[in-house]
């Protein structure tokens, strides 16, 4: 809880810095009159903490996050427009990353030290090292430009979704693959797996029933962190693919010094992040009975 409160404070204060810079920087192009008008309109003359307090009040109590400087529309409205896009992107990336990452990780563990394993590990090394936006660009290059299979930008159909999600998922997928592999190998070395074999159980059943649950625990632990990475990465990927989500809104408004929008975006992102972490914690307790009762 404390973290939550602190987190809320932090983005706000960062944004405060921006205001100062914004108006210091724009000084040359703005007459005194205009400065006065804007200051009045946005209450910028008040000391910082008062501004912040008003903003919190408006935002949390009344859901009014202010008005965008640039678009001249309520921030909340803008956020609402763009939120679904980002959620869609994040969810599909996460799904791809988990499904592919876990399967490949398990597969890699089973074929330990054989060619497939080495190959997969090599690929995962690169996957983690490649910058997300580069992957996106390469995908566009391959599928849109050369093969002309998929439109470059746009939003609305499955075709539009697949490249960005794929690009965003690569880093997490390879990360998950690595962790799954290590965890699986360790689990398979445990005594209870040997005992399960001694009972005459076939390998497939041992993996699905005995090994998987135990091996997944470390993976779940990092899921929260992965989500953080995905949210951060989505900011960049949305730029690459011109995806109309919160991420690109954030970047654009930072460049445009659109303070209320920036604050709004950050709030939303933080909220999503906290929500996911909360869900991950619940999932963890569900999977490990020791935590539940002990």
């Amino acid at each position, binding site marked *: 809880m404390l973290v939550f409160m602190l987190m809320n404070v932090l983005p706000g204060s960062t944004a405060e810095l921006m205001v100062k810079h914004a108006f210091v920087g724009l000084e040359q192009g703005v007459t005194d009159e205009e400065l006065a008008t804007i200051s009045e309109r946005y209450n910028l003359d008040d000391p910082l903490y008062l501004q912040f307090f008003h903003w919190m009040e408006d935002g949390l109590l009344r859901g009014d996050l202010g008005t965008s400087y640039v678009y001249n529309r309520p921030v909340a409205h803008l956020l609402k427009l763009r939120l679904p896009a980002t959620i869609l992107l994040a969810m599909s990336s996460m799904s791809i990353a988990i499904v592919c990452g876990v399967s490949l990780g398990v597969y890699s563990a089973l074929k330990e030290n054989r060619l497939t394993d080495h190959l997969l590990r090599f690929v995962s090394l690169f996957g983690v090292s490649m910058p997300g936006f580069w992957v996106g660009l390469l995908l566009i290059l391959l599928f849109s430009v050369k093969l002309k299979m998929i439109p470059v930008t746009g939003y609305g159909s499955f075709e539009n979704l697949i490249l960005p999600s794929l690009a965003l998922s690569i880093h997490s997928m390879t990360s998950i693959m690595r962790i799954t592999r290590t965890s699986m190998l360790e689990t398979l070395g445990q005594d209870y797996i040997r005992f399960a074999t001694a009972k*005459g159980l076939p390998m497939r059943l041992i993996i699905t029933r005995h090994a998987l649950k135990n091996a997944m625990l470390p993976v779940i632990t990092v899921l929260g962190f992965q989500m953080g990475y995905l949210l951060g990465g989505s900011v960049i990927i949305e730029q690459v693919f011109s995806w109309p989500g919160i991420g690109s809104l954030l970047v654009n408004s930072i460049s445009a010094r659109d303070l209320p929008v920036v604050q709004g975006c950050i709030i939303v992102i933080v909220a999503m992040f906290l929500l996911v972490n909360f869900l991950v914690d619940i999932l963890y307790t569900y999977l490990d*009975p020791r935590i539940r009762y*002990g």
Partner: protein
Amino acid sequence: MLEVKDLFVEFPTRNGSVKAVDGVSFSIKEGESFGIIGETGSGKSVIGLAILRLLPPTARIRGTILFEGRDVYTMNSREMREMRGRFVSLMPQNPATSLNPVLKNSIQVSEVFEQHGIKRAEGLKKAKDIMSKLLLTDPGRVCDQYPYQLSGGMKQRLLASISLSMHPQLMIADEPTKGLDNESREKTVELFDKIRSEYGSSMLIITHDLDFARDVCDRVAVMYSGRMVEINKAGTIVTSPSHPYAKGLVQALPRNGLVPMDGQSPGRINLPDGCLFYQRCKSRKDVCKKQVPVMKIFEGGRVSCHLY
């Protein structure tokens, strides 16, 4: 019923090959309770695992293991799965780690039955039956719990019940008294007596506890450094052992004065020629250094020593 001929098990490591089992032969008859005694690291557990083909894939195995006349190592995976749990079962060494912590006990108990063709509900019923025979109080409640909620003794009985589920012909018990205090030891002896009287399975009992072996086994083999040095009736070995190492073991018992043996077992990678006990043997002769003694029949059992 079980015949092991010239079994060799090696584990290759970075520094050389560890010879865990170095030419072991023995057999177990129907209904017989056969014990293997040795120190930690003498290779006894490896034998038990080898019979069920539960050794890690890095192990190199040579020799023959015949169960009911069939060579275990020529069976395909289907036949192995049928043999495990049903004809030959394992009661593993460490009760705490041999149960899957995230699965309910009921699942871990019933899956043996399910795997061998019996429906879950019926399997559970049979399992609870075995559990009460083995003096596990309130089997129903035990099944609903998770492993971490059981005490060490309860876990052991649970494991014993699981291994007896399909009334196997041979049950391999790996170090059943490891780390147990005297009272629990007594209970375990009781348990094994119960198993023998109720089920009549043959047993292969792997232990370091001489007295336990005497109480529970018909015949006992003494292992040293990967080789069997003496095989005889359990009582005989404890009262009048033939091989010097066996003598040393008996002398080291608390009631005999806790007389320790000098020296240590040889490192397992580059084994010396001749008898492996040479360094520590008080009755050694020159020939012991050069020649490995052959196992000979002697006074109702077999010994591998140049003294005889």
